[in-house]
């Protein structure tokens, strides 16, 4: 079995079998990262382009390393979206990359749906590295990989996502992923940051962090952005930290072996207290390593990998 689509635009489009395949393929990839010689020749001669319209050191570096470990030729294009009026249209950029021979294009964009436009105009595979508030599928995959590695399963776990759900593509991708894989998902945040119709995604919203965290297996903390406070969605950062910051006491309401996760970068002392971030339960650094492995798996699978036929030789 391979992936059904040429692109990875969102977890919403994936079946649980596809998610499983990606997670399983990421396991041997993780071994490669741990080796002295972190390189396999698999994607030799493939051009992988990081097209980033939004600054992101982490995700871009992670994709770049994943490509390089697989021997692909990776290049980075960073463009600012502030110049949309003057800049080249996404359609024209897509066409340009196409004729230059791109095999896989990884796109990060502040506008939801930008990867969909790109995929419409390019025959190369498109990987969504985060689009607006829509999805960030590789983050969800690495989160699922991390949980599966630590807990041995996803099915039946209780996962709490805490923070600005309204503006979070990580939350959306994770909600799709975890519910598809059989976990129970709770979302916790101030009512102004919970999106409308969220229950219809099969999750339970909580405005009390104490209630929401009680008995969960995973606490996933989202980054809170100052800009939301400036738009009046909550009164002050201080009050947010007081009401929704994940402190050791609040983390203690979860199961004793609960995992603490954060997609980074963290605002220590705001959405997560340093003691929690650095606790034994924290797998925040594992998430980063696993990100590279999951992205290697995706590059491999989108380059055509994943069918089970035997090697005849």
């Amino acid at each position, binding site marked *: 079995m391979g992936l059904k689509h040429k692109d990875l635009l969102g977890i919403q489009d994936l079946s649980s079998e596809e998610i499983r395949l990606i997670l399983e393929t990421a396991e*041997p990839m993780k071994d490669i990262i741990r080796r002295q010689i972190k390189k396999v020749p698999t994607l030799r001669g493939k051009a992988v382009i990081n097209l980033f319209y939004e600054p992101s050191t982490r995700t871009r570096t992670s994709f770049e390393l994943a490509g390089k470990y697989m021997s692909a030729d990776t290049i980075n294009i960073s463009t600012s979206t502030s110049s949309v009026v003057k800049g080249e249209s996404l359609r024209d950029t897509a066409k340009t990359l196409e004729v230059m021979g791109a095999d896989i294009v990884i796109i990060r964009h502040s506008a939801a749906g930008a990867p969909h436009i790109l995929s419409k105009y390019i025959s190369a595979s498109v990987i969504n590295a985060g689009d607006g508030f829509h999805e960030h599928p590789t983050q969800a995959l690495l989160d699922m990989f991390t949980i599966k590695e630590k807990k041995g399963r996803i099915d039946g776990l209780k996962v709490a996502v805490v923070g600005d759900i309204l503006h979070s593509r990580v939350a959306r991708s994770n909600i799709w992923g975890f519910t598809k894989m059989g976990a129970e998902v709770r979302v916790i945040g101030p009512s102004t940051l919970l999106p409308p119709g969220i229950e219809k995604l099969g999750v339970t919203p909580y405005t009390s962090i104490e209630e929401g965290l009680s008995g969960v297996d995973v606490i996933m903390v989202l980054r809170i952005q100052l800009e939301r406070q400036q738009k009046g969605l909550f009164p002050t950062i201080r009050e947010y930290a007081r009401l929704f910051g994940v402190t050791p006491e609040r983390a203690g309401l979860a199961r004793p072996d609960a995992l603490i996760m954060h997609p980074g970068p963290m605002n220590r002392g705001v959405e997560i207290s340093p003691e929690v971030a650095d606790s034994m339960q924290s797998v925040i650094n594992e998430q980063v390593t696993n990100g590279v492995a999951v992205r290697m798996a995706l590059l491999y699978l989108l380059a055509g990998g994943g069918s089970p036929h035997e090697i005849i030789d």
Partner: protein
Amino acid sequence: MLEEKALILDADGIRRALTRIAHEIIERNKGVDDVALIGIRRRGVPLAERLARRIGEIEGKNVPIGILDITLYRDDLTTVTHQPVIHKTEIPFDIDNKTIVLIDDVLFTGRTVRAALDAIIDLGRPQGIQLAVLVDRGHRELPIRADYVGKNVPTSRKEIVSVYLTELDQKDKAVIEVDTA
């Protein structure tokens, strides 16, 4: 449909061939102190386990066994649309300065062995690499030869050589098959 055309080795034949190869490995390396066996997924793996058992019986020593998945090293990723599912490579020992005996069921074009050599060299710097196969059917496309061969069989390119092993297939035999479909 695959139809059996000729028997290359039956269960006894496989057993005898492996016993002989085990002796040859010991003899050629003057013991097995620095020898490790690495089976190429999938059928090289039970063969490596059987060889290790034989060597243990003969020498009274345990040889380390590893499993190699060469999928990521194949040279045809760009030419075929579907590639195999990747499994883990499991080599639980340091290969530096060891004599590695690579084990596979059938030697044909040599491309799998080429991929396996690259994969091993990415893992470390062994003293030397040797190759053991149950069946050598010819038609090499690369300058590669086996150090230990269970049986040499002349075949035509169209024929299919299949090795069945009890661990995976509930029977032991090596046969020439033709596709009648």
